[in-house]
C-alpha cells in the first residue's frame, strides 16, 4: 500500500512539473510590468486590451482559423477513408500504405516542411494559407486515423449485414448505420486536428509565405521584449481554448466508444 502511495506522490509531482509553465501564463498576463520576471508588479488587464486592438494579430487569427478548420475537415475525411478501409477490408500492401499515411507521426516536422517547401518552389506555386493547409492535412491525418480506428474497430459487423439483408445499398448503409455510430469519433477527430493545426509552427513558418498564422506571429513577437506581455495574454486565451476543445473531444471520443459497445483503452493514441 505504501508503494502505491509513493507512486501517487510521484505522479502528482509529475503533473505539477507538466503544468508549471502553463500556470505562469495567467500570472504574467495580468502582471503590470513589461519584463517577464518576479517580483510581480500589480494587477492590470491592459495586455488583453492591447491584444484586442492589434490588427496584425487579427489577421493572423483569421488565417489560423481558416487553416485549422480546413485542415480539420480534410484530414478527418482522409482519416475516415483510412480507418474504414483498415478495419473492414483486407487488401494488398495494406501495411505499406497505412505506414505511409501514418509516417508524419514519427517524421520530424522540419523534414515535412522543407520537402513540401522544395516541391512548391520547384513547381512555382506561390506560398499562401492554402499551402499551409496541404502540410497540416498531412500531419493531422495520422491522429485522425488513430482516433477513428478505435471508433470503427468497435463497430458490430452484424448491424451492417442486417442493413444489407433489409435491402439497403452500400452507401445508404454507411450513411444510416455506420456514420451515426462513429459520429462521436468524427467530432473528436475534427477537434483534435483543429487543435493540432492551430498550434503547429514549423510547417506554417516554411509554407505561409507572407501570410502569418498565429504561431508564426507569436514566434516573430518573441524578438521584441515589449511585446511579450501581450503574448502572455494571448497564450492564456489559447490554452483555455485548447483545454475546452480537448475536453469536448475527449467527451465525444468516450461517448463514441461507449455507443458502439467497445472498451475504453485510454488516451488519443
Amino acid at each position, binding site marked *: 500500500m505504501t508503494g502505491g502511495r509513493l507512486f501517487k506522490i510521484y505522479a502528482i509531482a509529475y503533473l505539477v512539473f*507538466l503544468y508549471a509553465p502553463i500556470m505562469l501564463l495567467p500570472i*504574467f498576463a495580468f502582471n503590470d510590468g513589461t519584463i517577464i520576471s518576479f517580483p510581480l508588479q500589480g494587477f492590470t488587464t491592459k495586455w488583453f486590451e492591447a491584444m484586442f486592438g492589434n490588427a496584425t494579430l487579427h489577421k493572423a487569427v483569421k488565417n489560423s482559423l481558416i487553416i485549422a478548420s480546413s485542415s480539420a475537415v480534410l484530414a478527418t475525411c482522409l482519416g475516415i477513408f483510412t480507418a474504414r478501409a483498415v478495419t*473492414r477490408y483486407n*487488401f494488398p500492401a495494406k501495411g505499406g500504405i497505412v505506414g505511409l499515411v501514418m509516417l508524419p507521426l514519427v517524421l*520530424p516536422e522540419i523534414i515535412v516542411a*522543407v*520537402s513540401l517547401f522544395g516541391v512548391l518552389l520547384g513547381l512555382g506555386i506561390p506560398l499562401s494559407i492554402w499551402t499551409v493547409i496541404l502540410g497540416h492535412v498531412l500531419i493531422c491525418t495520422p491522429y485522425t486515423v488513430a482516433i477513428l480506428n478505435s471508433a470503427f474497430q468497435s463497430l458490430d459487423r452484424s448491424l451492417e449485414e442486417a442493413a444489407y439483408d433489409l435491402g439497403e445499398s452500400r452507401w445508404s448503409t454507411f450513411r444510416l448505420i455506420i456514420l451515426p455510430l462513429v459520429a462521436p469519433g468524427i467530432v473528436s477527430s475534427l477537434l483534435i486536428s483543429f487543435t493540432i493545426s492551430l498550434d503547429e509552427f514549423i510547417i506554417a513558418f516554411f509554407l505561409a509565405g507572407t501570410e502569418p498564422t498565429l504561431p508564426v506571429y507569436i514566434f516573430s513577437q518573441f524578438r521584441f521584449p515589449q511585446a511579450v506581455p501581450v*503574448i502572455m495574454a494571448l497564450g492564456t486565451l489559447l490554452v483555455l481554448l485548447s483545454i475546452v476543445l480537448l475536453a469536448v473531444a475527449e467527451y465525444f471520443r468516450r461517448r463514441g466508444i461507449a455507443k458502439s459497445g467497445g472498451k475504453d483503452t485510454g488516451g488519443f493514441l
Partner: protein
Amino acid sequence: MNSEGVLHRIRRSEAANGLALISPPAIYAVLLLAAPLGLLFVYSFLTDGYLTILWEFTPQNYIDAWTDPLVRTVMLRSLWVAMLVTMVTVALAFPVAYFVSFHVKPSRKSMWLFLITIPFWTSYLIRVFLWKVILGFNGVVNSGLIGLGIIDEPLTFILYNVNSVVITLAHAYAPFAILPIFVALEKIDRSLLEAGQDLGESRMMTFWRVTLPLAMPGVIASVLIVFIPTIGDYVTPQLLGGPEGRMVANLIQLQYLRLDNYPAGSAIAISAMLMVTAISLVFLFLNRRFLRGPK
C-alpha cells in the same frame, strides 16, 4: 472448382474495395509526402547556382556536409541531445504510466491520461518560451533561489546552452512517452504477476522478470516516438539553445530560408534522416528479443 471461383471473386472484390477506399489518403500521402521526400533526395545531389538550382548531379553537398566541422558538431550535438532527452523522458514517464495502469481505478484511468495529455496539445511555442522565463537570468528559478537565500548570484548555466534545451524538450515530449508504455502495461495479464508471486518471487523480482520484459514493447515505442521528433526540433534550440545549443533543424532552416542553398540544406536533412533511421534500426535490433513475443 466453382466455389473456389466464387471465393476468389469475393476475395478479389474485397481487395478492390479496400484499395478503392484507401486510395484518397494513399494518393494524398504519395503526392504530398513520398514525392516531396523523393525530391528532397534529388535536390541533395544537385548543384547550387546563385538563386537557382543547377541540374548537375554531384555528391559534393554530402562531402561538404560531412567534412564541415560545424555541421558535424551540430549533428553530433543533436544526436546527443535527442538521446539525453529520450532517456530522461522515458525514465521519468515509466513510473507514471505504471501508476496509472496498476494503481488507478479503471474508471479514473481516462481522466489521468487526459490530464497528462492536455499540456502536450497546448501552445507548444508559448510553453517553450515560458521555460526561457523560468530558467532566465532573473527568471523564476533564479529569483526564487535568491529570494530564499540559497544563492547570491543568478545561475547562468541553465539558459542558452544544451542543459536548457534538454529540460525543455523533456518537458515537451513527456506525455508522448507515457502513452505507449501505458498501453503495453495495460495489456499485461494480471494473473501472470500473481503467478510470479505465488511461485515465491518477491515484488521486485516479479517486476524485473515479468512486468518489465512485457512492458518493453511500449518502452521501445516511446523511445522511438520521442527520439525521432526531438532530433528535428527547431523551436527549442532556437529560443533556448543560444549559440552553443543549436541543432540540426536550425542548420536546415538557415540553409533553406536564409542562404537559399536548397541542395546543401537537403543534404543535411537527408543525412540527419539517415542517421536517425540507422540508430533506430540498431536500437530495434538490440531489443529484438522483447518484440518477438507470442501473438
